[in-house]
């Protein structure tokens, strides 16, 4: 790491030794004796590459990565699963949203090593071989996407919404989709898609279709 004196004109070396406060506890720098019974304890692994086994879209994925690699980066950079996007990389925008054991999670803010043994679903795992997931179809049908970069995250969040509330109210939908940001401004139609997807058994919507002749005027 570059010396803080160079970067910011203030030395942080002392601080780094003493200020590791956070998470659920304070930092530990002392080598003092503890009253907690000394025990073999769990194994310390890393910081170099370690084997990490993930279950993604029902398939087993064996990787060798550093413990610091996030779930998002593990899939995008090591498994070529690039459907979910990196946008804010800090758990603010939702483009990286995956479903981990049935609940949505920001994969940018999840370590890959922490989700071993869990069922991970990405946007790639939603569509069938020849058919889209009803949520994906609804997004297409109402044009709930533009540049499409937020879309995979929104699609995953909407799938999770409807798995939790199959008959979601607009209020429930808004709340469950509040963790995602779109910059093109497709929100109105995403809401429309969510409401449409919950009634997939209903009649097809407006006359818009791909490629066919004789599309009716809207």
């Amino acid at each position: 790491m570059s010396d803080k004196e160079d970067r910011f004109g203030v030395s942080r070396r002392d601080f780094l030794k003493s200020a590791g406060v956070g998470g659920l506890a304070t930092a530990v720098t002392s080598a003092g004796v503890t009253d907690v019974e000394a025990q073999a304890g769990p194994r310390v692994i890393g910081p170099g590459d370690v084997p990490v086994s993930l279950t993604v879209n029902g398939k087993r994925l064996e990787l060798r990565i550093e413990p610091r690699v996030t779930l998002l980066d593990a899939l995008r950079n090591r498994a070529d699963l690039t459907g979910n996007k990196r946008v804010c990389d800090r758990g603010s925008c939702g483009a990286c949203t995956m479903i981990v054991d049935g609940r949505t999670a920001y994969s940018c803010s999840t370590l890959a090593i922490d989700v071993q043994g869990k069922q991970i679903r990405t946007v790639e795992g939603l569509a069938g071989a020849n058919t889209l997931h009803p949520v994906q179809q609804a997004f297409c049908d109402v044009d709930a996407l533009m540049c499409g970069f937020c879309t995979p995250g929104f699609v995953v969040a909407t799938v999770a919404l409807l798995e939790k509330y199959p008959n979601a109210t607009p209020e429930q939908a808004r709340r469950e989709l509040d963790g995602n940001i779109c910059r093109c401004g497709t929100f109105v139609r995403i809401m429309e898609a969510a409401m449409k997807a919950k009634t997939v058994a209903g009649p097809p919507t407006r006359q818009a279709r791909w490629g066919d002749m004789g599309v009716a005027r809207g």
Partner: protein
Amino acid sequence: MTWGWRVAKYTWPEKPTLLSTRVLRLDGPDKVAGRARYTYDINRPGMIYGRIVRSPYPHARVTSIDLAAAQTAPGVKAVVAYRNPGDEVHYQGDPVAAVAADTEERARDAARLVRVRWEPLPHVSIEAQAMDAAAPKWSTTQENTRPGVRQETGNLETGFNDAAHVVEQTYSTHVITHVCLETHGTVCEWDGDKLTAWVSTQGVHQCAQGFAQALGIPQANVRVITQYMGGGFGSKFAPDSQGIICAKLAKLANAPVKLMLDRKEEHLDTGNRPSAFAHIRAGVSAEGKLTAFDGRSWGTGGAGAGSNFPLPYLYQFPNRKRVHTDVYINAGQQRAMRAPGHPQGCFLTEILMDELADRVKIDPVEFRIRNAPPIAPNAQWIKYFQEGARRFGWEKRHPTGDPTPGPIKTGMGVSAHLWGGAGRGSTAHVDINPDGSVVVKCGTQDLGTGTRTIVTIVAAETLGVPMNAITTEIGDTQYPFSGGSGGSTTAASVSPAIRVTCTDALNQLFAKVAPTVGVQPDDLVAEGGRIRGATDASKSVAWKDACKLLGTEPISVDGKWQDGLSGAGTSGVQFSEVTVDIETGIVRIKRILAMQDCGLIVDRLTAESQVYGGVIAAINFALYEDRLLDRVTGQMVNPNMEFYLLAGMSDVPQIDVVLNDMPERGVIGIGEPPTVSTASAIANAVRNATGATIRSLPLHPHKVLAAIEQQRAGGTN
């Protein structure tokens, strides 16, 4: 210049089957399924990752750059110094060096090992401060301000003599950044002296030229590919420094390099919308006619970049004067951002309009109608004011200040805008193959506006075949030249090119099949997958059978945009209803109505999406976004998406879009206009709700509360 002459044979169909209908976005399925590969998603064999080292200081001189530690760090394949000792950096985020390593994590590690020594220089980061003669200078060689040219029309003295009321106030808007969800970046791969670059760009051909000239290689050696891109909003027309650095790292490492900026770099060094300030004195006659406008304006486009905007905007002040000053500060430079200048000029003018309307006690819609330019094909404001007011329930609007009890006040506002959107110059190629397949190639790119879809719509409409019979190839410099996608010019440039090219190809096919069908080529039409006589439909041949007559040689046609199929000039009006909690100052938007034209609508579905998107972008401009520089250190305090606020689902109101289809005007762009006036309509609605005027964006609660407080205290609000 080719405009001004018309070719009669190229026209839009009178009774289209696809044009102006709701056609689904072609790449929707690939995008919703995560199959669409953006630049960020390109993974090449042997690819490594680039990372740029940037200045943490807003203004400094580089005293030394030591690359040694980075060069020997694990996984590092290339390290370059981008600056030399003695060089001056002018903003936080100014690039100074770069590394490439085998993993992203190691590239970040190595970047932190580049030891740069700095001599910090005095900086300036606030417009008002920069304008002070004693202020620190943003550059050791440049002044902080650049005075503009004085513009004067009519006679100000006469204008103010005619005024029954005069308003004099200062108005302002803030700096926002583009926040493209896909950050700027590139994947560069060399094959000998040939470069292939996947770039998140609004202009593939334009990027190829940039790479070639910056790297000193023939443009023929550069191929740029952008199949999908995650938002540009005016900020992605060139490879930029990160593109050139990426290409150099790839050359040095002899490996493909992916270099995508992170969110912080994106906020700091990929452009922004300049701030705008104006001190305005304006007069209105007793009859409610604008008489005079005297404005002194300024703003900053960052380090050495301009900040001008149109002022006054749209409304007719017969006597006016205006002087603008560019102010330079130590911050990243501005770039074109969705309707450059217009949102600023619109806001500054439209708030003033409501203040003037209240002085003469005329309803704001009526006041605008009295002062709007006369109705014309490209100037539909008066019509939209009238029809929009009816649709929106404007008659329920109370005078300024919601009289109902309780802390939640409701109000309505209105605002108007315009944009050019004219096209020109695109070229295209079409092959009609003997097996009936059709390939359309155009070196344009789809930013999410639906370009891929409209290219296919126009080709299918012209050739009379289903859209799924067309293979559309865009987003690659291997295809014919097209302009960068900016200025809302893409639809108006590309659609005519496709129409012309496909018409020419079809005419060649008509000539081939005429003898077989037994109808003169000029009397043939293509429709419903068949070629048939225009008057005698019984004489026909199926598309596939017609193409078989080509034998072994396809019809292969190049064509170019021609005048007559596209137009220029759009107008729009927006209405907004908001609530304001006067005990917290928090504004919530209830609904927005957007009235908009764009000439001939190509795809109604994606055109509507453009309007929704423009409105929502402007909600962000009005309420949430704000690039905040620390007033002491000049460093950005919110270079993320946590404290750089953007609307989420719960912040987005009901939005109604009314598109005025005007096929006789040809195709005109719609990307920018709908984002111009929303913020003004919102601010006017806040004023209507509270009776307090906020003359500065964003409408943060602290300003709302202060304005309410000032109004209660009997201030000049």
